Structure formats: C-alpha cells, structure tokens
C-alpha cells in the first residue's frame, strides 16, 4: 500500500514535470524541450543558452510563467475543492461555493469599469479585496443562520447570486464594448496575463495552504460520517471548519485574482483523484494537487493553441472537457444497488 502511494506520488511528479516542459514547446516559434531546459538553466545561473533573445523571452517571460501559473492554479483549485467537499460533506462543493469567485469578479469589475481606487488599485488587488468581502459576508451569514454546514453552502450560493448580479449590473450599465470583452475574458478565467509575480505569489499561498490542509488530513477523514461523528472522534469541529474555510478562501482568492474564475477544476478533479487515490486525505490531497496541476497545464495549452491565433478563455475549455470527464468518473464509480 505504501509502495503504491510512493509510486503514485513519484509518477505524478514526473508527469507534472514532463507536462510542464512539453506544454511550453507547444505553439509557434518552434521551441524544443531541450531549449526549455537550457533557458531555465541559464536564468537560474546554471549554464547558458544559445537561443535568440526573442525566443528566450518567449520561453522565460511568456510560456514558462504561464504554464507554471496554470499548474499552480490547477493544483490549488483542485485541493480547495477536495477540502470543501469533505468538510461540507457535499459532493457539489467547489472552491467557489463560498462566494469567493463572484466577490472577486465584482471587485475586479468595480476597478476596471468604474475606476474605483483611482488607478492605485490593480485589477488583481480589487479582485482579491472583493473575494475577501464576499467570504466575510458568507461567514457572517452562515453564522447568523445557524452555522451548520448546509447553511454555509446556502449562504455561499446566496452570496454568489448577489455578487454575480452586481457584476452584471455594473458591466451592463457602465462598460463599453471593449471593456466588457476584457472583463468577460477575465470572468471566464484566463492565464494569458501571467507574470512571474503572479506565479511566486500564488505558489507561496498554495504551499502554505497545502501544509495546513495536509496537517488536517486525518481530521478531514473523520468528517465522513458528519460533524457529530467527527466531534465524537475528538475533532474540534468549529475550529477545524474555521481554519480550513479561511485557508481555502484565501487560496481561492489569490488564484482568482491572478487568473480569473476558472470553473470546474475544483469540482471535477477531486472526484477523479478519489477514484485514483482512495478516500484517505493524507494521500488524496497530494494526488488531487498533482492531478489538478497536470490537468490545467494541458487544458491551458489547448486553450491558447486550438483556435490559434484566437485564444479561448481557459475556463470555457475546462468546462467543455470537464463535463464529459465528470460524467465518465461518476459513471465509473456509480453504485450498483
């Protein structure tokens, strides 16, 4: 069993590294895997590259940060989804169930369309603030409504509707066609603006969130039969819920402010990972992270090349691919009664 876990982990990491290298070579400019390594090595001070500055720039300034951000976003969203589904005991829960993404959209739209903040606040910062406001509202609302897990989900759905309506209202009443197009692209999720700052920021938040979630792995297992059962197994339910909700909300907020609301990864990948790794969270969470990372790297590669030179928002592709994959996973794990 442990051997299988190690094989799964090693295989996953290997697959991720190969995916990163291969995905960077896809597209115009004819870049080979060896070029990717040499560019990375030269920028890390481990050698030199004979690529032209333009092609070096394509790898180092465009494709590498973009691909890395795809991996980080995929991993983060998938882990958030897995934690939410276990914590809220709801297979439909995803990172956006706490209203974080719709809050982020409203924040971003307020900055971009209405110029709130007078240029001092960037789109990402606006999105991040919007996400936190929305999450605070959901926490407050669910606490007022009784604090049980179904109330958290319902408060999240309510917040999601409210902020989506606000976003649509602002866009429809105040934005011109050009801005609307830009905002829409961001709302659907896009990694096209990825830079190294985004990568480092999201990676740091992801690392912290992963460590926290993994330290709660056994506690999450105990939620299988509900909160009372968890409490009877010695879990302090209220503290666990608060810590994990805050950590996942922060991670989601960071990811959404960098890449927009990329849907479906957080909903589908955990189910696929469960089919691979089983129900124990100590193994499930790392596998979910790796699966999410590999998945989004390839989906984003598809999104930027399929209709070349036109780019498709990555969120559209995740859903187009995700829905059939979701159905396939559910079909495979269906219960024969």
């Amino acid at each position, binding site marked *: 069993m442990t051997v299988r876990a190690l094989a799964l982990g090693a295989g996953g990491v290997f697959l991720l590294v190969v995916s990163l290298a291969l995905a960077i070579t896809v597209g115009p400019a004819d870049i080979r895997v060896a070029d990717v390594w040499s560019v990375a090595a030269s920028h890390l001070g481990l050698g030199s590259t004979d690529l032209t500055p333009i092609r070096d720039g394509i790898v180092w300034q465009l494709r590498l940060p973009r691909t890395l951000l795809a991996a980080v976003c995929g991993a983060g969203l998938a882990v958030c989804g897995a934690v939410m589904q276990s914590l809220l*005991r709801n297979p439909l829960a995803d990172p956006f169930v706490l209203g974080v993404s719709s809050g982020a959209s409203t924040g971003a739209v307020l900055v971009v369309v209405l110029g709130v903040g007078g240029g001092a606040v960037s789109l990402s910062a606006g999105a991040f603030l919007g996400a936190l406001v929305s999450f605070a509202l959901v926490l407050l609302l669910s606490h007022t409504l009784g604090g049980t897990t179904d109330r958290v989900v319902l408060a999240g759905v309510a917040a999601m509707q409210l902020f989506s309506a606000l976003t649509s209202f602002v866009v429809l009443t105040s934005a011109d066609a050009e801005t609307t197009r830009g905002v829409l692209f961001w709302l659907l999720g896009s990694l096209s603006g990825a830079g190294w700052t985004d990568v480092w920021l999201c990676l740091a938040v992801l690392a912290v969130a992963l460590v926290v979630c993994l*330290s709660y792995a*056994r506690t999450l*297992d105990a939620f299988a039969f509900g909160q009372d059962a968890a*409490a*009877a*197994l010695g*879990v302090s339910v209220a503290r666990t819920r608060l810590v994990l909700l805050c950590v996942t909300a922060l991670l989601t907020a960071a990811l959404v402010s960098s890449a927009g609301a990329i849907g479906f990864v957080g909903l589908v990948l955990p189910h696929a990972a469960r089919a691979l790794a*089983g*129900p124990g969270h100590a193994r499930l969470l790392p596998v979910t992270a790796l699966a999410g990372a590999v998945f989004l790297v390839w989906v984003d590669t598809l999104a930027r090349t399929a209709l070349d030179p036109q780019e498709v928002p990555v969120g559209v592709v995740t859903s187009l691919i995700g829905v059939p994959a979701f159905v396939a996973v559910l079909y495979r794990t269906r219960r024969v009664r």
Partner: protein
Amino acid sequence: MSRVRTRAGEPVEVAGLRADRVSRRADGRLILDGVVLAPQTGSTVGVLGPNGSGKSTLLRLLAGLLTPTAGVVTLDGTPLGDLPRRTVARRLAVVEQQADTQVELTVVDVVRLGRVPHRRAWTPGTADDERAVRAALERTGLADRAGQPWHTLSGGERQRVQIARALAQEPRELLLDEPTNHLDIHHQLDLLALVTGLPVTTVVALHDLNLAAMYCDRVVVLSAGRVVASGDPGDVLTEELIAEVYGVRAAVSREGPERRPHVRFLGTLA
C-alpha cells in the same frame, strides 16, 4: 474528594462516566431536568422513554456533544468540558442511530476512523493502531469482510461496522442512541447480544421495552426530561409505569429462568 452525593444523599464513587443533575434547555424549553445517571463499571444501562422524552439529548450530553445548562457530566470526576475532545474520544465512543456517508469507504476504512483520536498529524499509523483495528474486526465478526464497500452493507451490518469503529477507539464507555432502529429482529437481538457482551460500560437508548428487559442490567425511564423510574428492569417495567409513561395498557409477565419481564401491549389508554 472523589465522592459526590446523589439527590437521595448517598455517596457514590465517581469512577467512570457520571451525569450529576444535568439539565438542558433549548429555545426556552426544558428538554432534560435534573437527570442523574451513574452506570456501574462494565454494566449495560438502558435509557427508555417515549419520543421527545430526552433520551437522545441525554446521550449527547454524556458524549460531550452538548453541554448541560445545569449540572455536570464527569469522567472519573473531571467535568467533560475541562477535558480535551481527543482525550474524551480515547475513553468514550458513540454509535449513532443511523450513520451514513457519501464517501466511498470500505469496512476497514470505517473501522480505522476509530483510531483518529489516537493519532497525530503527519505520522503514519502504528502497530498499535493496526492491532486495535484487527481486534475490533475480530470481535464483531467482520474480519473476513474488511475490504467490502460500506455502501453494499445492510443496515444491520452497518451498525456492526460502527460498533467495530467504536471498539477501535478502545473506549471504556460506549454510548448507543437507538442502535436497533431500522433493523430486523434478528439483527436487533444480534447487535444487543454483541454490545452487552463487550467488556465496557454501556449506555444505550432503546425504544423496545422487551429488548431492554432482555439485555440491560439496569434501566432508566425518562418522561418529559425527568427520570421517573430507574433500577432493575424487573422492578421498573410494571404495568402501572407503562400506563403512566407511555399511555398504553400492557400485561407484564415474568417467565423463564431469569424471570425477566415480558411486556405484551393491549392497546392505548383512552
């Protein structure tokens, strides 16, 4: 120091789980009113009473899942509220009326949950953990079904797995809230025989008076949150008490070697 007085005034040892004049008020309504419960070590105590009499609330108070509004539940003399939840969970296990999950678990996965209070984060399971899980599976006769998926089990088998999970906690006290609901008669008898044969102190809420009479060393009868009778099932389960508490006409006979009471219901009281 290690003695408390019951309402009747006689001192008792405080070893094990004790409820001392516990009350619970919710939404201005008194659900439990000054209940005293002091199960003898290793015995099986049945908690009886009609729907809404406070059986489940009493069990939740005993498990530390609810806090009493008055009175105190103690474990070896220490109030439950002063003990870390993990410490309580290593001493005391709970089996609910009906447990279900959306997660795809096997029998052994569920039983392993019983080791959660014994394990620390970031550490793999120890040999002790595996030994406790194996022992719990053996004891409940599930050793050859460890790999079976939870969702393919019948209601009786699921309760058996939950008892195995509770045993994997290696508790000294076991609390069961109407564990035989939804089970057929074979599984009801089977489950209670298993539970009463365990070397732990057991408090079990039951609906069925005859099951209580067959398997409990003592019974406590609740009505509207108060204890109206407690003691040996043979002394407690009388036609008068059943009429008063349940509003039901019954004939109680005492046959068989142990002279345990048998209740035959005749109809409701007009």
